[in-house]
């Protein structure tokens, strides 16, 4: 009898938690999102090599832990279209947690981003060149 009560409360707790999790997912995402844009276009210009190097930096630094491109990676902060929204200098400040970003990022994230100030200049430039190609 008492085990029935215990099992009942356990299943009730599990059901309540899963329902709340579903509710949270729904409240956060009222309408299904448009499918992500296709793979980032790589302009066939002189910057092509730099952009490819930047893509490698993006992968090596594990940017996808917190960001996504075309649906690949952490969808919380998608980078799709970032090249259209922000200037190169602005992107640089956001990568390094400086300027406007410094005030708007949570403390832990700011610390993580400020660690990128130690990136070699060449890598940082390549990364920014790559991000600038993300225009849709």
């Amino acid at each position, binding site marked *: 009898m008492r085990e029935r009560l*215990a099992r009942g*409360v356990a299943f*009730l707790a599990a059901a309540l*938690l899963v329902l709340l*999790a579903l509710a949270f997912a729904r409240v956060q995402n009222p309408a299904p*999102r448009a499918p992500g844009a296709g793979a980032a276009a790589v302009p066939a210009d002189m910057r092509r090599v730099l952009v490819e190097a930047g893509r490698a930096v993006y992968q090596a630094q594990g940017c996808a832990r917190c960001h996504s491109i075309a649906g690949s990676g952490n*969808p919380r902060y998608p980078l799709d279209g970032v090249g259209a929204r922000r200037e190169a200098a602005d992107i640089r400040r956001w990568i390094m947690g400086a300027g406007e970003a410094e005030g708007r990022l949570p403390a832990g*994230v700011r610390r993580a981003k400020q660690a990128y100030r130690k990136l070699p200049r060449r890598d940082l430039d390549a990364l920014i060149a790559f991000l600038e190609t993300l225009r849709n």
Partner: protein
Amino acid sequence: MKDIASPVFWILLYLALVAAPLLVLLAGPTPPGAGRWWDFSMALGFAGIAVMGVQFALTARFRRASAPFGIDIIYYFHRYMAVIGFGLLAAHYAVVRGAYPAALGPLNPVQASGYMSAGRTALVLFGFVLVTSLWRKPLRIGYDRWRVWHVLLTTAAFLLAVAHIEGVGYYARGWLWTGYTLFWVFLVVYVRLLRPWRMLNEPYRVVGVRPERGQAWTVTLDPDGHPGLRFAPGQFAWLTLRGSPFRFGEHPFSISSSAARSPRLEFTIKELGDFTRTIKDIRPGETAYVDGPYGVFSVDRYPRAPGFVFVSGGVGIAPVMGMLRTLADRRDARPLLLVCANARWEDVIYREELESLRPRLDLTLIHVLQEPPPGWAGEHGFVTGALLQRVLPANRAELEYFLCGPRPMSETAQQALHAMRVPLARVHFELFDMV
């Protein structure tokens, strides 16, 4: 009304504690949606760690919170919730793994960021603890060693999981997780320091250790400089012998002495494992510590019952004896039936005392022996439905039943009683031996 209000209050409090992080997430400001699967996965992770955060409270032996249910059932619930909590955490990982593999980053801890490795390690540790707890006996892990590692590993896993949440950063409500962590720390301090300290100030003295039939020993304790504890007959306590209460050295045993003759306590303990084998070496004058009483296995919970039936197997007679002695001391006139199962006639614990209780109680005593001596005219074999059918009185559906013995005996008796239309709510037993 009060009887129902109290359990409902504790159940609601539990549900509120495990749901709190999700309710806070739902109510509070959150970053914009990142896709249903992603947000679902994050919420599952919070739900799982909230369940884990409250697990320690379930086993902290809060007498007031456990009293309405019986502490054995709280441990049983702890076990269920461990599986559910781990399931939620595993689902959190699985959804991200399936839908957003790139977000996980590298597995190699040298390349991975610290908080991602912390999350992975926490999941593995929780899984390890779950397996070593559910299958402790088949894995041949000693109880005392298991207990120490259980606390250490779950604490480490919980702290790593909180570090993972803080590291991800975006959803963290700093105060919320600090709160859960402080709650955990408070419980550790309470269970490991405050309560042992209180026990240290209320020691007991061993008055005697006497042999019983069936390789069992009865330890008698008197409180030393304090009034002792008040208990209901049939309850049990955690007993520490030859050790400080600050060590993980206590074991649960039924109180077999009369509740009407407190403060003296007696525990009858059968030699079964490493700890119980040392009981016979205890000497009068040694110090002991008692944490209790616990449990709902007591005739005192059913003051209006017209009569009681006890079914005991082997040393399972100990709490039943506590109830019989108490009823005798109170001159209780209600009809009692004891079905007392043992392997051999020579091993029947309290054999002589049970006889001597007969004139003081309206007691029908039925011995059931697996290996009866030559010429035995009584019941033999196991406790079966047919046997109960034969010996139970006509008003069987109105009586309260107390089962204490090996699990197969207890389960057979339950099924038989159910088949005889005895309401399940009248059949009582402790769930022990779970890990």
